[in-house]
């Protein structure tokens, strides 16, 4: 009962911030909040396969990009389609979808894509599946650049209505968190972790490896597509290079920093990296201490972030949260951490 009450309180708080923030905070802070929430959706969806199931996919951003483009194409008005995408196939150029259906369609599309792509790929073991999913990312990029009838090729895809607002992103974030939380802390979630931690033992006790991995991959891809749609309606214009290696590294850094086996860790990772980037970026612009002028060093923040990442790999590869959750003791801790510490035989 207490838990239900606290959750409801939390939701009310979230809604309050979502709707009230634009009136109480400067535009800059609202944007930062929105980006943090959006990145949280990305990283949470990434954590499902990469963190909990042990499939370290490097191709996740391919799904994000696919979702962005699908949703973007669907959302353009008929007039815009005629001018920007004159060669769009007939069955697509006579209608325009509102925000929510476009987002859902994007998610469904990427989930289906994940099932098709994942069916062969999820058979590969550890390192090779990472390499293969990286190949997928590159292929998506090439297709986006070349299918110019659909995507305007390497040119900027523009005209997407700026529908994404704080309430939308927070709403989807809550949905994502809820679904993932129910998934991860359930028998299916335990299967995922079994597949991650010991593939031999898992198949020995009858867990269907392919199915488990594929499901995690596809569900993650669904939310990636949804997030991509939100991102598209936030940016308004983008191009294929938006969804390539730079974004991939960014998301991986957030995932790893926060802790790959933890949902709250994903969010914490996003917040930390975002804040750290902002701080480093402001230092980048140069500053003065007394009479001493430190010149502007654009690009130094990324180098610094990279070094921090390596330090984490060396000293704390499990990230900030490792595999436990942040929840004032209200939410169940990961069962795994207890077994690993030898408390449970």
């Amino acid at each position, binding site marked *: 009962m207490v838990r239900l009450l606290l959750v409801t309180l939390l939701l009310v708080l979230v809604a309050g911030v979502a709707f009230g923030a634009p009136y109480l905070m400067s535009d800059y802070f609202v944007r930062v909040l929105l980006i943090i929430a959006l990145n949280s959706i990305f990283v949470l969806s990434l954590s499902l396969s990469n963190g909990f199931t042990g499939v370290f996919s490097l191709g996740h951003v391919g799904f994000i990009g696919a979702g962005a483009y699908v949703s973007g194409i669907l959302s353009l008005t008929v007039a815009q389609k005629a001018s920007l995408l004159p060669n769009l196939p007939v069955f697509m150029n006579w209608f325009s979808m509102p925000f929510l259906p476009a987002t859902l369609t994007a998610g469904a599309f990427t989930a289906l894509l994940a099932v098709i792509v994942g069916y062969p790929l999820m058979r590969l073991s550890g390192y*090779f599946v990472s390499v293969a999913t990286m190949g997928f990312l590159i292929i998506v990029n090439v297709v986006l650049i070349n299918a110019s009838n659909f995507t305007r090729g390497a040119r900027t895809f523009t005209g997407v209505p700026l529908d994404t607002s704080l309430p939308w992103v927070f709403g989807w974030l809550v949905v994502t968190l809820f679904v993932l939380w129910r998934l991860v802390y359930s028998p299916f979630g335990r299967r995922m972790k079994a597949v991650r931690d010991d593939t031999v033992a898992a198949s020995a006790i009858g867990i269907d490896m392919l199915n488990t991995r594929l499901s995690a991959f596809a569900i993650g891809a669904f939310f990636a597509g949804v997030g991509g749609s939100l991102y598209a309606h936030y940016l308004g214009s983008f191009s294929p290079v938006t969804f390539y290696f730079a974004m991939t590294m960014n998301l991986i850094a957030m995932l790893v920093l926060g802790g790959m086996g933890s949902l709250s860790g994903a969010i914490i990772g996003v917040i930390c990296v975002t804040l750290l980037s902002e701080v480093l970026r402001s230092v980048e612009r140069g500053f003065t201490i007394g009479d001493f002028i430190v010149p502007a060093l654009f690009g130094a923040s990324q180098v610094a972030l990279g070094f921090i990442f390596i330090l984490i790999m060396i000293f704390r590869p499990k990230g900030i949260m490792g595999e436990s959750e942040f929840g004032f003791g209200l939410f169940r801790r990961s069962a795994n951490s207890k077994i690993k510490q030898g408390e449970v035989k």
Partner: protein
Amino acid sequence: MSSFEYILQQVINAVSLGSLYALVAVGLSIVFGVLKLTNFAHGDVMMVGAFTTVLLIGIGMPFIPALMCGIIGAAMAGFLIERIAYRPIRNAPDVTRLLTSLAVTYILENFGILVFSSSPRNFPLPATLNDSWQLLDGAITFTNINILTLVLTFVSLIGLGWFITKTTLGIGMRAASEDMAAAQLVGLDINRLIVVAFVVASAFAGLAGVLWAAQAGVVQPQMGFTPLLKAFVAAIIGGFGSIAGALVGGFMLGALEIFIVAFLPDEITPYRDAIVFSLLIAFLLFRPGGLLQPNREVKL
């Protein structure tokens, strides 16, 4: 131009491109063989070699010495990368090592952008190297740089072949690639072996970087990215971890890319990279050991 001449020209192009891929792939395979790690920073080591050479030519050094210095610079970079980033995580789980490798390339590329800015700058090729040769009434052209690439590739591969069959360290590298525990048991100094492997691999990357930049005419901090990915596909096709495999894979990939561009219809040509990476995935799924190693196990 008859089709024979066209084909001959494409063969020349393929060999030229293939040697570059082979040079990069060899280094990748050497490091993977010994460390079982994909060194994503390999492409940036190429970049270090290229930039070193460009800067030295800029201050007046002739081409050949600048090239040698570029190779040495790349080798030093590889040495430092192994020491600073890879040694501390040598026994960490695979995912950690993969991530560290990605982080190193991220740092190096951004550092390059920081210092040199991301816009391309000219590769100051000495005039003689740009001279072209024409055969068969101009139907076939290639430049001195193409010849130089071929010659240097040939020479360095012969040198590598000598190293891995006649020296204890080189034989030890092959042994360690096959069975690291057994290599330890015969008493090989593994630390030294790994350092040597990195230095050799990075030297090759440096050479490839200079030649690549020379052929492209420009250098920029992100230049290593594409060659790295392509070399990676080449190494997997040939058999990852095997030097011979890297050679075979490199030349086959070069041939494949030229073939796609030269002989397939124009609608398909822009999808060249998609085809290449689909091939990568196909090999991973059906022939993970590559063409030369049929017995590798990579599935669940």
